[in-house]
Structures are given as structure tokens and as C-alpha cells.
């Protein structure tokens, strides 16, 4: 039983990371219909920036704060310089552009930081703490806390502020949004900035348990896609819950189903994508698009 609880908590920690990245994907997808394949590499780049700041003697938390800020700015700039010029072009073109971005950012991180894996010392020790006979890793608890806080903050921004209302309006109906005076292009740029922030959180949280190297987030991105599909591509709440469910599921299957073990976890995630698309394409929390005719 103790082992089971440990596995669940550790699954929630990975799930928080998947959920944050899945939320980033869903935010952009909802606003523009684009699947941002570069989201994982953007997160890796953020983690490298944070690592460099720490390497230059910064303490973790100031470095983390600066990384969040730089990632936001980077996301905004990326939208304005790369995405906006082809915003009105065919969707496929934009999707392919994000794949190009994936390759470009991957190349950039390899060029600047090299391909060798780096040790990333997170803010939380990996030492276990004992709660009622069950040993939890402090790192897991910390990662869960950070993921939850960042997701809740983004949620409050979207549901409780005027800016969030504008972001939702621009995503729901850009034409109408402009008619009531919302500056839609600004909102889209802001959306990319926020997605980059969530990616940065995911990247920095993932880096201590994975090794920091240019391809670090590629598998995580696939898990995040699975989480987003599971929750519903258009449901922010679904993305986060999908991430948590997937994290726990993968951990439990990896632990208790011996022929899956550690190696077949990715296959399980892909099976989840396939299963959801076959049985409930809108995902757990997504709505099937219904149109009045």
C-alpha cells in the first residue's frame, strides 16, 4: 500500500509537468487552432536559460523568476515575428512552421549549450520525507505544488480578470471580439507568451529528474499531447486533469504491469491517444462541436 501511494504521488509529479505543457498546447490550440509542436523545445530552451543563470551564480528562485519573464517575452516575440506573418494562411502551413521551429530551437540549444546532458539542481532536495510510514520525495511534492500554483494562477487570470475575458473572447470568436473593441492580435501574442511561461514551468520542473539536454522535452511533449487529447483539445481544465491522470496511470502501469516496465510507457501514452480518439474524440472534458444550421 505504501508503495502504491508513493507511485501515485510520483505520478502526480510527472503528471503536473505533463499537465502544464498540455495546458500550454491547449491555450494556443483554442485561440488559433494550431498545434504548437515547438512547445516542448521552447520549454527546453527555457530550462537551459534557467540553468545558465544558476550556472552564473544566481540562486534558483531569482533565476526561475527571470526565466519565466524571459520566456513570456520570448513567446510574445515569437508570435509576432514568426507566426503573425502567416497567421491568415492555411492552417497546415502554420503547423509545419511550428515543426520548423521545433527543429530550429533544438538546433539553437545544441549549438549554444552542446548536446551533453547536464545535471540540473532543482530547488527541492530528493531526500524523502516520511508521512505516516510512507516516504515521499520532497522533489515530487515541490513539483506538484509548483504545477498546481502555476495552473491555478493561469486559471484565475483567465476567469477572473478583464484581460482573461479578452483572451477568451479572442479565442472564441475573433471577429466578434474586434467588434467589441478587443485588440485580437495583442491577445494572440499574449496567449503565446502565457503558453511559453507554462512551458518554462514544465521544463524547469522536469529538468532535475530528467537530464538537461536539447531533446529533454521531446518525450514529455508526446505525453502532453496524450494528456491534451485525453482531457479534450479545447478544455484547459481537461488538459491539466488529463496530465495528472496520465502521469499516475503511466507510473502505476510501469510499476505493476511488469511487461510494460519503464520501456513501454511511451507506447501506453500513444495507446491512450488512440483509444480516446476512437472512443471519445472530444476527450473527457471537451465538447463535440455542434453547430446550429
Amino acid at each position, binding site marked *: 500500500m505504501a508503495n502504491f501511494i508513493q507511485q501515485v504521488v510520483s505520478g502526480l509529479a510527472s503528471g503536473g509537468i505533463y499537465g502544464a505543457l498540455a495546458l500550454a498546447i491547449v491555450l494556443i490550440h483554442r485561440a488559433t487552432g494550431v498545434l504548437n509542436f515547438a512547445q516542448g523545445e521552447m520549454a527546453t530552451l527555457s530550462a537551459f536559460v534557467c540553468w545558465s543563470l544558476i550556472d552564473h551564480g544566481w540562486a534558483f528562485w531569482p533565476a526561475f523568476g527571470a526565466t519565466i519573464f524571459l520566456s513570456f517575452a520570448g513567446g510574445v516575440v515569437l508570435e509576432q515575428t514568426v507566426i503573425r506573418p502567416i497567421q491568415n494562411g492555411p492552417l497546415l502551413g502554420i503547423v509545419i512552421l511550428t515543426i520548423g521551429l521545433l527543429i530550429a530551437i533544438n538546433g539553437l540549444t545544441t549549438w549554444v549549450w552542446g548536446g551533453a546532458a547536464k545535471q540540473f539542481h532543482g530547488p527541492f532536495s530528493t531526500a524523502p520525507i516520511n508521512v505516516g510510514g510512507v516516504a515521499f520525495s520532497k522533489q515530487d511534492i515541490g513539483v506538484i505544488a509548483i504545477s498546481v500554483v502555476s495552473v491555478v494562477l493561469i486559471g484565475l487570470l483567465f476567469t477572473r480578470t*478583464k484581460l482573461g475575458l479578452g483572451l477568451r473572447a479572442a479565442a*472564441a470568436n475573433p471577429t466578434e*471580439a*474586434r467588434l*467589441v473593441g478587443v485588440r485580437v492580435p495583442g491577445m494572440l501574442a499574449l496567449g503565446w507568451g502565457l503558453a511559453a511561461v507554462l512551458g518554462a514551468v514544465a521544463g524547469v520542473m522536469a529538468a532535475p529528474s530528467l537530464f538537461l539536454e536539447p531533446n529533454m522535452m521531446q518525450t514529455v511533449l508526446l505525453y502532453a499531447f496524450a494528456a491534451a487529447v485525453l482531457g479534450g483539445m479545447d478544455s484547459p481544465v481537461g488538459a491539466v486533469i488529463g496530465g495528472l491522470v496520465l502521469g499516475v496511470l503511466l507510473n502505476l502501469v510501469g510499476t505493476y504491469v511488469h511487461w510494460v516496465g519503464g520501456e513501454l510507457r511511451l507506447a501506453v501514452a500513444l495507446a491512450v491517444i488512440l483509444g480516446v480518439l476512437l472512443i471519445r474524440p472530444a476527450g473527457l472534458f471537451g465538447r463535440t462541436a455542434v453547430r*446550429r444550421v
Partner: protein
Amino acid sequence: MRSSTGCGSDLSLLELRDVQARYGEITALHGVSLTVAEGDFVAILGANGAGKTTTLRAISGTVKTSGDILFDDHKLFRRSPEAMARKGVAHVPEGRGTFSTLSVLDNLRLGAWVQRGVSPRDLANVFEFFPRLYERPDQQAGTLSGGEQQMLALGRAMMAKPRLLLLDEPSLGLAPLVVREIFAALKQLNEGGTTIVVVEQNAALALAAANHAYVLETGRVVLGGDAADLKANESVRRSYLGY
């Protein structure tokens, strides 16, 4: 063409001078000129494809145009829908443009986007006009009935406290009772000082509510004047009123 139509000495809030608009190869407006006085209630009549909707879209900046558009006696350059909303133009497009995935209350809040904040008094005012919205603030706009959606669209426009309210076919597909309710609200808004331009297929309804009217045919203004005069006009009667 009588473009300055018995508006008396009232200041003109809006003036279109030879406005042309095209969608790709197709020219929708061949040079529309019209004037709307401050506080006026103007109906734009015409058959399908006459350019009524495009005229509204030209005013709200959702279609590219050539020719001059004057608002408040200032010529407008580089118009965009956002800028026009800020100037006090609220456009309720055809098909009850609401944010269908957002709640009733969020839709109304968005109406006040150009305002400093959501004023509880304005909100109360909208709810007083349309009690049915008050009963369901959290309902998704897309799940409202057609009439309720039109009320919401109008309520949202009211939240912007517009100087000029543009409505495209507000009666389309609605039950007569609801249509009466909507037009009563428009009349009341107009009496409160809001200038209104309404595009309507239902000419009898529009001419009864409006003070002035213009008739469009194939992208041109062919007739304009007092609503009462147009109602009596032989060709308007035959083509648009059907008696």
C-alpha cells in the same frame, strides 16, 4: 439621390460619401452616400445583395472601403473594428453575434470592453430591458433561444453605451412577440439619445420604427428621406411593403 434628407439643422453624426467596397472581384457597394444625424433612427432597406450588410460593415470597419466616412465631422482614416468600437460604434451583426461558448454575463461584460469597467448600473439597465437575461446569467450564450440571443446581442451593445448602434436584421427568424420586444427596446434606446441605424428585410417594421430611411439597390442608394414619405412612396410600397 437625396442624401441630405430633412435632418433639419441637427449635427450629422455619420456621413458616407461615395463609399465603395468590394469582396475580391465582386463590388458590393458602388458608391453609397448617406447622412445620419445625431439622435436619428435610420432604416436601410433593400433586397438581398443590395449592399445593406456591407454598408454596416463599412461603417464599423470590418470591410475595406474607398470613399470618405465621416464620424462626428471627422474624416476617418485607417479604420479598424477595434478603433470604431472605441469611438462609440456598436455593431450587432446578422445572426445574433454573441460569443456562443461564453456565458451571458461574460458576453455583457465584453460589451463594456471599451468602457472603464463593468458598471453595475448599465448591467441593471440591460436586465431591466431584458429580464430573461437576468434569469440566466451563467448560461452559455449558444444554448439560448434565438430571441434570447438577439436580446443578448443587443444588451451587449448597450453595455458599450454606444453613440451609434448598428443592427443587421434584428428581426430575422424571431417570433413576432420577440420582434416587438426588441423594437420597443430600440425605440426606447433611441429616445434616450442613441443614434440607430438598422438594416431590415421587414420594411414595414423598420419604417414604423425609424425616422429616416434609405433604399439600396445593387450597391447604390436609390431613395432616401423621411420614413413616413418612403412609406407612402409608390415604388417602395410595391417593392418592399408588398401592397
